């Protein structure tokens, strides 16, 4: 019953033979070895598994790999180019917007989606957009600071 899907992952075209029930998270983690996205809650509330699919943040724990057929998927591993941090990553480093790091790839990808959609968000817009990502270490204030201070890509 496996099906073959084709998708773009971090700019590279990939095909995979998947079981219909395989999640997108398991596809990127187990099949493609991209483990930056984490399983946290398994019910799309914590945001640790966030990936960008066609530019929009989704919870990969609750999306079927089949539904990503033909899609453009970005994982945290695809964000920095040539070992140079993406401006969102730089801001997270500069403002200390993480502690244990388990939620970090989800926060960074959600932030990228926010800034792609609203280049200069208000603080309230930042709080609303990122309310679906949990940071249990409690780095929320630093995260807000980081998001406010992301340098635009030259």
């Amino acid at each position, binding site marked *: 019953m496996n099906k073959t899907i084709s998708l773009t992952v971090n700019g590279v075209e990939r095909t995979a033979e998947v079981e219909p029930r395989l999640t997108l998270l398991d596809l990127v*983690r187990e099949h493609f070895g*991209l*483990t*930056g*996205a*984490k*399983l*946290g*809650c*398994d*019910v799309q*509330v*914590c945001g*640790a598994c966030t990936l960008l699919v066609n530019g929009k943040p989704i919870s990969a724990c609750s999306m079927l790999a089949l539904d990503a057929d033909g899609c453009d998927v970005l*994982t*945290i*591993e695809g*964000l*920095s180019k040539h070992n140079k*941090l993406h401006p969102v*990553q730089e801001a*997270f*480093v*500069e403002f*200390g917007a*993480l*502690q*244990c*790091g*388990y*939620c*970090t*790839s989800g926060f*960074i990808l959600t932030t990228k989606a926010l800034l792609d959609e609203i280049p200069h968000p208000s603080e309230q817009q*930042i*709080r*609303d957009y*990122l*309310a*679906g*990502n*949990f940071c*249990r*270490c*409690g*780095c*929320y*204030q*630093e*995260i*807000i600071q980081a998001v406010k201070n992301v340098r635009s890509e030259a």
Partner: protein
Amino acid sequence: MELADIGKTFRRLDYETKVTGRAQYLADMSLPGMCHGKILRSLYPHARIKSLDTSRASKIPGVVAVLTRDDILHDQGIEPYYGPVFKDQTIVATEKVRHMGDPVAAVAALTADAAEAAIASIEVDYEQLPAVLDVQEAIKPGAMLVHDSVKLPESGFADLAELKPVEGTNLCTHFKLNRGNIEKGFAEADRIFEDTFTLPATQHSFLETHACIAAVDPGGRITVWATTQNPFVVRTQLANIFKVPVSKVRVIVPYLGGGYGGKVYPKVEPITVALAQKAGRPVRVVLSREEVFYTITKHAAMIRMKTGVKNDGTLVARECEIHLDTGAYAEIGPRVAKKSGYTAAGPYKIPHLKIDSYSVYTNKPPAGAFRGFGVSQSAWAVESQMDIIAAALQIDPLEIRKKNGYDEGDKFVTEETLRAIGLKECLNRVAESIGWKSDGTSNAKIRKDSSIGSARRGKGLACMIKATITPSISCAVVKLNEDASLSLYTGTVEMGQGSETVLAQIAGKELGIPLEKIQVLGVDTDVVPYDLTTSSSRSTFHMGKAVQLAARHIQRQLTAIAAAEYNVPEEKITFTDGKVRLPETQLDLAELMFKRFGMRGGTLVGEGQIKTSTKDEYGEKSTSAFWFLAAGAAEVEVDVDTGKFKLLKYATAVDVGKALNPLGCRQQLAGAAITGIGQAMFEEIAYDNGQLINPNLVDYILPSLGDMPATIDPICVEVPDPRGPFGAKGIGESALIPVAPAIANAIYDAVGIRIKDLPIKAEKVYLGLHGVE
């Protein structure tokens, strides 16, 4: 390259690897030939296992091993009973299950799907037993017993030696503290206040669930990769269970995705090792979110507090009874109960005390360490009642705290001398941050001015004192390499607190080396020297000191090399900014290494140890190597029509001793406060007849960015403790503890409703406002 320093924010060493998704956590790792392990868990809070049928499970393709009680009871190589304080746990249930989610059997298979199918195929015939579902039931005479008897360990923790289970009852431990003369104390009091406070079980909810990979070689050598905060304790426990010397157990710890106390002591490691041993292959077990809720929780508590006070607000006597629901297994509950008892007087001088603190067995998932370790529970009562007293006596809540609060040199309830005590500075700073006015009228004025429609504003304060685990041990090794770079070997687990960076700062500061040239090695018990635990807010103080001593050991060796080489007395040689300065010349570290070894090579090894004991360096009794002091202040807005409230601002001040990395300190303070906000306003494990009904992050609510106040103000107060490295103390837990009472006190200030049961929810405020008990 900038030399390492302290008192200055340095970018954390783990940031690049974490923002790029490259940091490896346990569930990201696998081994060749590895099996996936899954656990069958009890559906009932209390039942006898009449029979277990695994015949279908072992026939499922891909299944390599099925583990049941037969394997642990009939294997001479396994000691079935374990536990950090009492040996009341088994790898899988032997005779009875004692809580919903108690492990019954486990399967290792080539795929996770096969393991899950095998688990589902195991048939268990249970005889359900009456369950003890709350503490009040558990302590009644004739209550159903959770354990018929409890095995004691051959050797246990020094600080818990006097605590034993009470035979024939569900009392796991009873800690008593008596001081002065309680009857006399109450006789001296003008007013007596009696209140009962409760708080529910909660869950740490680290985003990374517990996980373990275990490999057992045919010679019996055990290697585990573990999500643990105390690898050396896990090593000891595994050595005891599998009857091998500790040298035959190797525990490796990758970065943890949060710990908060929920990853101390063995969790999933014993069952993973048993599976790996039986399977003859490496096995990985990664718990689901639901399973985490069955593995460890924070103690629910009921606290009865009776306090005698003079009309001027002086506290004279307190009788306090604390019941902590420790669940089906003692875990570290006995120490939690002890710490709750020690702090039932709060950070206040009370001459007459009678404190009884109990850990009580029930048929619920085990409760153990949670950031705040028993003090969150006692402080909820202490600091709520402090405001009840202040209101009744019409004394300002800030003033009554300062009137009774500890100062430098005061005696703690154990009669030991308190040193480096920044309590009142913490109180003053949070009060200032939220615009607290002590004349009483100004607060009322603010309330009136800000009353728009149904909204009422109020402010509240709370403070606390906490101890660190004592006695304890931390050892460190520092290696100076031939290029004057440094490698640090410590057992401190990096779980988000920034320990790698602060330890590197300490070593770098001592030797004058830039952070870029320092590597802090990951934890591997085969490689790093012993450390008791990464918990109890102890690492900066203890491991920081051990690293400092190790760096100084290197300094002494370098001084001796220079002295010999240049024929200069050692006392004429000084060491600053990475240079060894002699009367005539100076050398950098690489040059000295070359002098020592005559070529570009060689290693100098520095060693440092810190061992705290029940006597401090002043020769006095010591139950804590240093003291944590903190205060918090909240401003809230309550809607009197609905009871809904908003936290507008929260200020947290912690006496950090010395802020070695100021941003790191502020992160710890704000982070702990945010966990405290969750505990105060949302978090609660719910049971229905012994069934845990919200073991997921939809129904168990964590604080998100949407719940945050406009401002959280983390304030570092610095009253240096000369015993810590550069005067630093530990800070991991302090800021969490005052949050719940500060918010409850602010709500009372706003609308006159006293909430005595956590979490503080809108409906409780509404019911209070509308006269419903």
